[in-house]
């Protein structure tokens, strides 16, 4: 049993409306040291695989095919050997 932690972010160069607005509100709230904010997604999968390599391959597929849109997003992930989700 594995856990996959997947981090999805907007590609560099793609304008991030959410990040921009959060940055602005942080500024208004006095958090002046933040110079940039980017928003992304964090997806966690619990996998029944026995084999880590296979798990990795499948997660790669899932990211490519389903979880991200390559026009605007990139991803990275890690597979953790873990029982607790």
């Amino acid at each position, binding site marked *: 049993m594995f856990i996959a932690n997947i981090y999805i972010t*907007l590609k560099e*160069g*793609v*304008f991030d*409306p*959410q990040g921009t*607005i959060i940055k602005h509100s942080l500024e208004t709230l006095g958090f002046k040291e933040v110079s940039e904010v980017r928003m992304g997604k964090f997806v966690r999968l619990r996998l029944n695989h026995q084999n880590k390599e296979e798990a990795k391959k499948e997660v790669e597929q899932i990211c490519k095919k*389903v*979880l991200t*849109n390559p*026009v*605007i997003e990139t991803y990275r992930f890690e597979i953790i050997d873990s029982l607790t989700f």
Partner: protein
Amino acid sequence: MRFGIVTFPGSNCDYDCYHAIRDILGEKVDYIWHKEISIKNFDCVILPGGFSYGDYLRTGAIARFSPIMQAVKEYTEKGGLVIGICNGFQILLEAELLPGAMLVNKNLQFLCQTVNLKVENYNTPFTLRCAKERILRIPIAHKEGNYYADEGTWPKLKENNQIVFRYCDEQGEISDEANPNGSLFNIAGICNEKRNVLGMMPHPERASEAILGSEDGRLIFESIREYVKKL
């Protein structure tokens, strides 16, 4: 002629399109359940607005895997007319039947309001009845309508005249103020190179009757009809 309207789980505007076509345009129309695997005897297929699969991952991201989408792809390859409205547009982008992607509106808010549209290409099956220089008033209702295309893509859109509608002001001027959602070049609708697939964020079915405040949207359905009848 006969229109087909695809219903995905979470489609909302299928009903509105159905009404506009049957009761206002006076043409035949059927719903197509998303699990169908073929499209037969339709002159035009509509992917309606709404929130297919709740838009829980990204807009349109899950709907593109519905069985019907393979059939839609084949249908367009054979030259069939497909129009994606709002969520339908988003699905067409995710299914790569149209280039680019949608980002969240620049102010992060859902926007329901009537916009002015400039028709940039009258030479499509969807716009041939729009009078030159006439500004269309049609409502939008979306949170993710901020159209994006990368540098490898948008020059081609321009070159091929694939930009069909742009947000403008009442006088037809294209400006940042007239851009409700931050969309690239104020884009509100685009078509494919072959001109048989249109995606647009505004809802023509909401502007097809005087009682709803505008009849400009009907021009789009009437264009389709005229195009099909001439075939």
